[in-house]
């Protein structure tokens, strides 16, 4: 599902954000990416999403060679990848319902179906009573649940998360984790970047440690 061979990414001349990454993440796997700040976790997520281009190496996502992909085809790749950020990245001027409906509009799902899907996922995350609220009226945990719902609404093959529990209470953290685990059980490959040690202590999933852009054992 995700294959990287000697992947390099530099932002400035002397600092390599990713420095020779080699790895394989199989379909349906749940992988944690961890490491201190500046280790390259966010860059790792961004290159999978095609948000940043790699400088060197080979990378295949969902069978697509990321070195050869055209800019116009990136949007179609991203439709199979859901993404969740620490700062939620919800559209503040739109209601909870509209935020979740939005990715469905983008891929041209009919209105009736959008309504049904959105209602269903809101019930699943326990926020159907908040459908008309705006993001800033909600608590951090609620906003993150909306962001996860938005990432999962189009049933992506891969779910990427960049420190999704970084801005929420510890109690809410486990609720959020449950949503990721549920998505994984339903067949979605999950790549979860975090430096939260509590979370990593309890997990039996594969953990990839990054340090200065390299994978360390």
């Amino acid at each position, binding site marked *: 599902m995700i294959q990287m061979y000697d992947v390099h990414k530099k932002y400035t001349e002397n600092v390599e954000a990713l420095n020779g990454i080699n790895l394989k993440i199989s379909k349906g796997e749940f992988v944690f990416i961890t490491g201190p700040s500046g280790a390259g976790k966010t860059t790792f997520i961004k290159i999978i*999403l095609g*948000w940043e281009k790699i400088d060197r190496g080979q990378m295949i996502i969902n069978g697509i060679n990321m070195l050869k992909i055209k800019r*116009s085809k990136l*949007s*179609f*790749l*991203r*439709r199979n*990848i859901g*993404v969740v950020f620490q700062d939620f*990245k*919800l*559209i*503040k*001027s739109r209601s909870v319902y509209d935020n979740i409906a*939005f*990715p469905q*509009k*983008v*891929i*041209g799902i*009919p*209105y009736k179906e959008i309504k049904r899907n959105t209602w269903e996922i809101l019930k699943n995350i326990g926020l159907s009573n908040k459908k008309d609220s705006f993001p800033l009226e909600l608590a951090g945990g609620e906003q993150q649940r909306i962001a996860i719902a*938005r990432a999962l609404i*189009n049933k992506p093959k891969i779910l990427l998360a960049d420190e999704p529990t970084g801005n929420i209470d510890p109690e809410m953290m486990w609720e959020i984790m449950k949503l990721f685990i549920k998505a994984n059980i339903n067949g979605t490959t999950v790549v979860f970047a975090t430096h939260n040690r509590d979370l990593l202590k309890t997990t039996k999933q594969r953990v990839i440690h990054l340090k200065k852009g390299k994978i360390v054992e």
Partner: protein
Amino acid sequence: MIQLIGSALKEALEGIKANKEAYLITIGTTAVSMSILGIFLIVYFNIQGMVKKWRENFQVVVYLQDNITKKDMEKLKSYFSSMLEIDEYLYVSKDQALKKFRTRLARNQTILDSLNVNPLPASFELKFKKKYRHFEKIKSIAEDVNKFKGIESLEFGEGWLGKIETMLFFLKFIVLAVGGLICVGIILIISNAIKLSLYARKDEIEIMQLVGATDWFIKGPFLFEGILQGFLGAVLSLIILYGFYGMFIDNLQASRFFIGAQSFLFITPRDVAYIVLSGVLIGYAGSYVSLRKFLNN
């Protein structure tokens, strides 16, 4: 597809609502700029119309010497008949010329009563086929005719026709130059307004890209915004122009310059359609410029 267009239109209207002030300023500036262009167009088309009408009635008068021989007269006639450019020619004898002159001077006939001789020469009136009624062609024919024997003089308004044609050429040049500059100006104004709109919705666009929206899906609402700005600017400019036309038409028609020509006209419905279409295209171009730059970054 309909759902996508409907959604893009809805987004565009929301964008307009969010940037109402900037939007109104852009429409106003577009309208004023297009009105200036419109004034030039009205003046140009009216002068062009007048010249066209003058050309339709245009003729060359070949005055003959009193002692022209029959042979020279026949030569002239056969030359006129052989000329492809001449539609018809009419011989006006000395007597006919005097009769015409008397009719023209209807009220002042007494002036002519004292004349014992007919001072007016016989002449040929030459009318030209439509496509040859332009200054350069007529001038060259007149020069050829003048070489024949028995010709007293020729009259074809070479002075004013040449000047008007030159003026029309320069006016056309000015309209094109001013029009071009104004179009570029409006494109930049609209592009700037769209840029503001894009920056205001930067986060939203980023989210659109994250969830897999195509460039066209993102561009759609902004293109509609630009098109609507150009369209409304053009329509408003037409209203301003019509108001201007209504206010000044009486003065313009009363001025000597327009006597005997056609009345001063507003631009034709076809040109109105062209102005509106130009507004739409300029609006599209303005937003496209900003979008290309923004999305490539």
